[in-house]
C-alpha cells in the first residue's frame, strides 16, 4: 500500500496530533506514505466566497497527485470533500477542465481527465484498504473503554458522488474501533455537526453546539469521543476549555481522540509518539502520558 499524502492546512499548521499519529501508525500497518513535496490550501473554505478560487486550488492538488500515480491519502474531511467534489465536477464538465488547465499551465501542471485520482480518507485506508482482519493482528492492547464515533459531515455528504460511508447509517468507524478492542455503539446525536463551518461568524453558537454534543455523549455513558477530521477535533478537543466557560459547565469535559491515536494506542505505541500530549481534552483520564 503506497499512497501520496496530502495534509492540508489545518493538520499541517496546528492539528499536529493527527499528522504525528498517522506518521507513527501507518508505516507499522504496512502503509508507505510519500509526500506531495509541498503543502497548500485545498480551497474548501474559500469556496464560500469564490468557488473559482476553490476549483483552482483543488485542481492543482489533483494535478500534482496525478504525477505520482498513487492513490491520494487525504486525512482531513474538508480536504477530502473538496478534492472529491472538484474531481467530480471536472470529470462531469469539459469546460471546467479547460478553464483549470489554462491556469495550471503557468505552474507546469495539468489535470488529466483520463487519469482520475483515487482519493482515500483515513477511515477508508483503515477499513477498506488495510482491512479489519489485518488491523486486529496488530492489536496488543485492546482499548476496553467506550468510544463515541464522530464521523464529521463532509466524509458522509453530499450524496451525489461516492463518499466514505453511508450518509445516514455509517458503520465503518465503529467497526474499526471494535477491531481495536474499544466498545462503541450508535447514539442519537451521532451524526450531528460540530459547526466548524460557522466558526468564522458564530464562534459562540458553535461552542454551545459542541458542548451540547459532548454533554450528550458523556450522558450516554461513553468514556471518550473519536474523530477523524481536524476541524471537528479542534472544536471538540482544543476548544473544550472555551466551551466549558461558555456553557458554565464541566459536564462537557471528555477525552477526545483522533481515530489514528486510538489505533496507535491499541497497537501499543507510546502515547507521546501519537501526539497525545497535544490533545487539550483530558485524554490523560484514559491514557498514561
Amino acid at each position, binding site marked *: 500500500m503506497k499512497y501520496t499524502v496530502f495534509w492540508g492546512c489545518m493538520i*499541517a499548521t496546528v492539528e499536529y496530533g493527527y499528522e504525528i499519529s498517522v506518521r507513527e501508525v501507518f508505516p507499522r500497518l504496512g502503509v508507505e506514505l510519500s*509526500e506531495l513535496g*509541498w503543502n*497548500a*490550501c485545498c480551497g474548501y473554505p474559500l469556496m464560500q466566497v469564490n468557488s473559482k478560487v476553490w476549483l483552482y486550488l483543488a485542481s492543482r492538488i489533483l494535478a500534482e497527485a496525478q504525477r505520482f500515480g498513487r492513490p491520494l491519502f487525504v486525512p482531513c474531511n474538508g480536504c477530502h470533500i473538496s478534492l472529491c467534489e472538484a474531481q467530480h465536477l471536472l470529470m462531469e464538465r469539459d469546460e471546467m477542465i479547460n478553464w483549470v488547465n489554462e491556469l495550471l499551465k503557468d505552474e507546469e501542471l495539468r489535470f488529466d481527465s483520463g487519469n482520475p485520482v483515487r482519493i482515500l480518507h483515513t477511515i477508508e485506508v483503515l477499513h477498506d484498504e488495510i482491512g479489519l482482519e489485518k488491523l486486529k493482528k496488530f492489536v496488543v492492547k485492546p482499548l476496553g473503554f467506550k468510544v463515541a464515533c464522530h464521523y464529521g459531515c463532509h466524509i458522509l455528504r453530499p450524496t451525489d458522488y461516492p463518499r466514505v460511508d453511508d450518509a445516514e447509517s455509517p458503520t465503518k468507524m465503529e467497526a474499526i474501533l471494535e477491531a481495536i478492542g474499544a466498545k462503541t455503539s450508535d447514539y442519537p446525536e451521532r451524526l450531528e455537526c460540530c459547526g466548524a463551518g460557522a466558526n468564522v461568524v458564530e464562534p459562540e453558537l458553535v461552542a454551545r453546539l459542541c458542548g451540547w454534543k459532548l454533554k450528550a455523549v458523556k450522558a450516554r455513558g461513553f468514556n471518550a469521543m473519536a474523530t477523524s477530521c481536524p476541524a471537528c477535533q479542534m472544536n471538540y478537543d482544543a476548544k473544550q476549555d472555551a466551551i466549558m466557560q461558555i456553557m458554565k459547565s464541566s459536564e462537557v469535559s471528555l477525552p477526545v481522540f483522533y481515530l489514528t491515536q486510538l489505533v496507535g494506542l491499541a497497537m501499543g505505541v507510546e502515547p507521546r509518539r501519537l501526539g497525545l500530549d497535544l490533545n487539550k481534552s483530558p485524554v490523560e483520564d484514559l491514557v498514561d*502520558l
Partner: protein
Amino acid sequence: MLKLNETDRLLEKLRESVATLTPSVCYSCARCSSGCVMVEAGCVPHSIIQLFRLGLLNEIERGLWSCCQCLKCDARCPQEARPAMLILALRNLLVAHGSAPPKGYMVMLENVVRYATIQQPQEVMNKDFDFVSRNTLGLPELGKPANMEAFRLNLKKIASNLLEVEEK
C-alpha cells in the same frame, strides 16, 4: 414591510447562476430548518429559499453567512431543492457583486496568497505547558508550491475583485 425588487439586476444574475439548482421545487416542509444547527443565528434554510424566490434579497443577507455547510439540509430535503448549495451560490454571488464577506474569509484568502495555506504553522502548547512547533515535534518541513509567483498571479486573476479591494 418587505418590497419585491423584481427588477434588480443582481437578482437576475442570481437567478441565472442558480438555474442549475432547483429551489423552485421547495414547498416549505421545513425539514431543512428543523434539522439546522444555525437557525438560532438567523439562518433558516427554507426561508432563504422562499426569500430568494420572492426576490427579497436584502432579507436573505441576514443569516446567510451563518450556515456552516454541514449539508444536512441537502441530504434530507425531500424535494432535492439543495438549500446548502443555494446558500453557497448566493454567498458567491453577493461577494462577486461587491458585498464584503466576513473578515475571517478575507484573512484566509490573504494568507493563501501569501503562504499558500490559510495560516502559517503555529506553535501549540502541550500538556507540559511547553510551546512546541513542527520542528520541535520532529515533523518535516512542508514546502510551498514550486512556482509561488505563478500561483499568486493566478489567484489574483481569479479573485481580483476581492484582492484589489484589500490592496486599497
